[in-house]
């Protein structure tokens, strides 16, 4: 008697619809029915877009100073739909940074990092930094003037770190200065080391969310008689899929209307008169103009350390002053400072 393929598979993978429902049906608080509370899923979706488009771009990309620029030009101008895939990759990177920052701001201003979720805040901080680093290494791969000098400046920033800086810089560049080995290092970091690390951290992030549940919020205008939760499957999954569809439409429009372009090829002997990094590094770039090298790097390191430690600092403040709203005011001041430095850097040539 022959078995149906489905029965054959079920005999070997004994997981049916009931078990699948059991595995996926995390109770989801009602506020996640609104899309602006779902910003955590957005960077995860964009991460998948980046993996898929990145793999496709890697089929043609050649990471060496002699070939990199030409291979990106080939992708952009000759390979079928290469311009579209590169545009998707570029815009998804931009949107991923924006989504991670917005998600983190939502977590910060709603206090969702507080006990018992401090560890997940630390994982989220690592993901924020990795998103920025993966953006930096990816931008450097094009080997055009701005990406070359951006990579040079970025690598030299590590040199400003006391004691270990010089070793970090040489490890990153594969030599004392940008050289033949540098692009392949950036490529391996961008296409393998960082994405694998991010995938592992995203898995840990989601696992911790599943273990602790999504933070609950209660609003003044909500109906107390209604259930406080709804099912992940299919309700929340459909919300996430709808967001994914909107993102894909948005990315396609951006990639078509504002496609990724090619600047002049890198010239290691001539820094352009006006040099700017990607917009999400404007803050750091302006900071580096305001303070001397080591002071700027150490102060940025201190700010990042305080961001990591914030759940523990906040807990200490709230132990002594339970009604304190220090986190809100510090958050507002930080957000305004970031916006001000970004606008400042964007509005001037030097």
């Amino acid at each position, binding site marked *: 008697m022959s078995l149906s393929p489905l029965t054959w598979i079920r005999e070997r993978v004994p997981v049916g619809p009931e078990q699948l429902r059991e595995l996926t049906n995390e109770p989801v608080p009602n506020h996640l029915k609104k899309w602006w509370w779902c910003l955590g899923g957005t960077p995860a979706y964009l991460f998948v877009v980046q993996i898929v488009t990145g793999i496709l771009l890697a089929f043609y990309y050649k990471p060496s100073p002699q070939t990199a620029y030409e291979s990106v030009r080939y992708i952009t101008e000759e390979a079928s739909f290469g311009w579209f895939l590169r545009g998707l990759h570029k815009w998804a990177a931009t949107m991923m940074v924006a989504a991670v920052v917005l998600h983190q701001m939502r977590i910060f201003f709603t206090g969702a990092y507080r006990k018992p979720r401090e560890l997940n805040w630390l994982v989220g901080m690592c993901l924020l930094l990795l998103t920025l680093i993966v953006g930096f290494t990816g931008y450097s791969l094009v080997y055009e003037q701005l990406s070359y000098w951006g990579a040079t400046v970025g690598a030299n920033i590590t040199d400003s770190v006391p004691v270990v800086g010089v070793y970090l810089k040489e490890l990153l560049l594969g030599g004392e200065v940008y050289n033949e080995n540098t692009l392949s290092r950036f490529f391996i970091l961008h296409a393998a080391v960082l994405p694998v690390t991010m995938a592992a951290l995203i898995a840990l992030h989601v696992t911790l969310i599943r273990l602790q549940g999504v933070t609950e919020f209660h609003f003044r205008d909500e109906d107390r008689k209604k259930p406080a939760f709804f099912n992940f499957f299919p309700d929340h999954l459909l919300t996430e899929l709808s967001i994914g569809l909107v993102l894909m439409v948005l990315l396609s429009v951006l990639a078509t209307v504002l496609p990724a372009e090619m600047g*002049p090829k890198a010239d290691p002997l001539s820094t352009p008169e006006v040099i700017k990094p990607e917009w999400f590094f404007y803050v750091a770039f302006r900071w580096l*103009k305001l303070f001397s090298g080591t002071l700027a790097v150490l102060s940025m390191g201190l700010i990042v350390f305080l961001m990591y430690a914030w759940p523990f600092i906040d807990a200490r403040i709230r132990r002594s002053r339970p009604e304190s709203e220090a986190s809100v005011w510090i958050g507002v001041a930080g957000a305004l400072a970031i916006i001000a430095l970004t606008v400042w850097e964007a509005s001037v040539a030097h």
Partner: protein
Amino acid sequence: MHTPERPPQPQPPPEGHDSGNPPDRRSFLARASSMGMIAGLGASYGTAGLYAARYLYPSKPRDKAWMFVARIADVAVGGSLRYTTPGGEKVALARQGSAGTVEDFVALSSTCPHLGCQVHWESQNQRFFCPCHNGAFDKSGKGISGPPGDAGQSLPRYPLRVEGGLLYIEVPTESLEVADASAPREGHDPCLDGGAPL
């Protein structure tokens, strides 16, 4: 036949004997072997990690060589010349003394000491300017504003040597492919006093 008496054998302790007492030989051996295994794993993976780090770290410094620049008699006191390294980097070289020794000369790199961008000479402002973070240097290479000025940094100087009336400079010999390969990049620029004034 006399059979020698065997010495009394130590009796195994009853179950749960070791709670609260010093560890007996068996538990000591179990712990020691566990510790040994952990130490062995740590040492072996640690060694592998060190090898990996050493593999990734550059195995040799940047190649450099001494290159001929000019006869010192051809460089007037107070004059300057522009030299281009085999890698294409521009070097501003000046003579500031008349002793005929290496101390008469300075050779300024065009690489900004702040974060490695290339500076260029602005004749209208009489300064070297770095477009990356607004660093500025006077004609002697001293930082005068921007992050290099704040940190008291100057443009790096290349090592020089005088032998038999000839001036030599030690410069890197490796280079990346440059955008405009047709432009002359290597060797002595014959246009004395034509470069950045010092």
